[in-house]
């Protein structure tokens, strides 16, 4: 069976003024079908860069990226993908119904299928009351929810979520957690990046940790925690190194 997400020695650097800064150092990982994969790392570690490379928004300098066995350069590779960017932006004058109609139809659904799917999805995300309101009038949390609705409207096999919890209040986070667990039960593959380590423990089958563009760990949560007391202390230890961690803790 083909892994929905496959990366092999992916490297990426950006120009910062006149010098090149490496954002990803030979990152290799794969996510298996039906797996929930949590991608963690401190700010600026390279999480979004990696997701952008998976989605084909940026081109890796070297290495290979495959989505469902296809290169991200091919639009067809994204047919079974649902994507939620960090801090999603939308066409503010469109209503939720119009946006979801576009999203569904662009992913190959008929207009009738999309129309049937909009109400239950918005109800599940608790924003059905705002269905016909321009998105520009939504709060930050509502925008995050409509972003998730857009990622889910075409019932994708694989979900790529960049910081899905950001901008959500505790109720919203709890709702999202429930939705992710439901999708997991349906056998969907989920790849998501987050800062919130508590969510990782309850939802993920495997995790990957990135720091300064290096994939420091990829495997089970138990293997990650090792001898540390909890996920957070292990995360801090890996991020800052043994010496600095002792100073902080």
């Amino acid at each position: 069976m083909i892994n929905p997400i496959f990366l092999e020695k992916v490297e990426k650097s950006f120009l910062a003024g006149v010098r090149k800064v490496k954002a990803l150092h030979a990152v290799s990982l794969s996510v298996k079908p039906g797996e929930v994969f949590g991608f963690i790392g401190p700010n600026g570690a390279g999480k979004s860069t990696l997701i952008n490379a998976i989605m084909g928004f940026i081109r890796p300098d070297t290495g290979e990226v495959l989505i469902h066995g296809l290169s991200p350069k091919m639009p067809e590779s994204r047919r079974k993908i649902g994507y939620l960017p960090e801090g999603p932006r939308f066409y503010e004058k469109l209503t939720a119904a119009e946006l979801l109609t576009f999203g569904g139809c662009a992913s190959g659904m008929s207009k009738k299928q999309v129309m049937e799917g909009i109400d239950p999805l918005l109800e599940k995300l608790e924003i059905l009351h705002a269905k016909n309101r321009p998105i520009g009038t939504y709060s930050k949390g509502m925008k995050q929810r409509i972003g998730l609705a857009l990622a889910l409207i075409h019932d994708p096999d694989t979900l790529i979520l960049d910081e899905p919890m950001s901008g959500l209040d505790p109720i919203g986070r709890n709702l999202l957690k429930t939705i992710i667990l439901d999708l997991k039960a349906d056998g969907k593959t989920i790849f998501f990046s987050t800062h919130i380590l508590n969510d990782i423990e309850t939802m993920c089958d495997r995790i990957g940790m990135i720091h300064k563009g290096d994939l420091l760990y990829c495997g089970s949560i138990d293997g990650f925690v090792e001898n540390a007391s909890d996920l957070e202390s292990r995360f801090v230890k890996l991020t800052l190194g043994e010496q600095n961690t002792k100073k902080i803790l």
Partner: protein
Amino acid sequence: MKTIGLIAGITIKEGMRNRALQGILTIALLLCLFYLTIIPLFAFDTGKVAVDLGFSSMTLAGLAIVVFLGIALLSRDIQQSTVCMIISRPISRTNYVIGKFCGVAVTVLIAVLSIALLSVVTSSIGIHFIVEMTPPRNFSWTVLLVSILFQYLSLLMLMAVAFFLTCLTTSEYLSMLLTVCIYIIGNSLETLIAVAQEGDLVQVSNLYLTLLKTIAWLVPNFSAFDLKIYVAYGLSVPWSYVGWTAVYGISYIALLAMITLWVFKRKEIT
């Protein structure tokens, strides 16, 4: 084709609901009404004045729509990563740019036709109710329609330039500034070359003239699309000129669109 239509559809909706467009159309309506008050002040050729003023408001509004709306719709997509919402679907970047262009093109068409209709209606009202106002000599609806279409074609060329500059610079303001500059150059370059070549009192070096001619190859010649003189004086339009100018305009748009696609395909969106 389906995805191009979908992108064009949401672009039209977003454009038509934009306050900038509504504001520009309101100003155009007020201008048309204002013309009715100033046209009787002219002693003769009021028909020509009405045509001139009508086309001027169409040009001004079209330019404002391309610069403030067309560029904003594309550059905000790239700057704010709204484009990710679209290209995270099974949609190629080529289809995105074409869909976006078609969407803005339809929005501009609706605006141009609305202003043209406003001009015609206000002029008709003026001719009926203001004694001093006369219709243009040998007025022809066909020539008027061709002139409006050419006005629209020149705006499409400007939009192609604007799209190219937006993809290249990603900066909304820089793109606006350069687009307006190119519009001014494209409108005046032909006259400048004619004066430099044939002006009795003008002496320019061959190097300068060659430079001007080289720029003329790169910058679109917008003045070639200005046919209002034929409407204003009731002249018949040379159809071969119309045909070749249309071919020039369409070819220019196609060529620039291909370069824009090439640039956008290589663009990294972060």
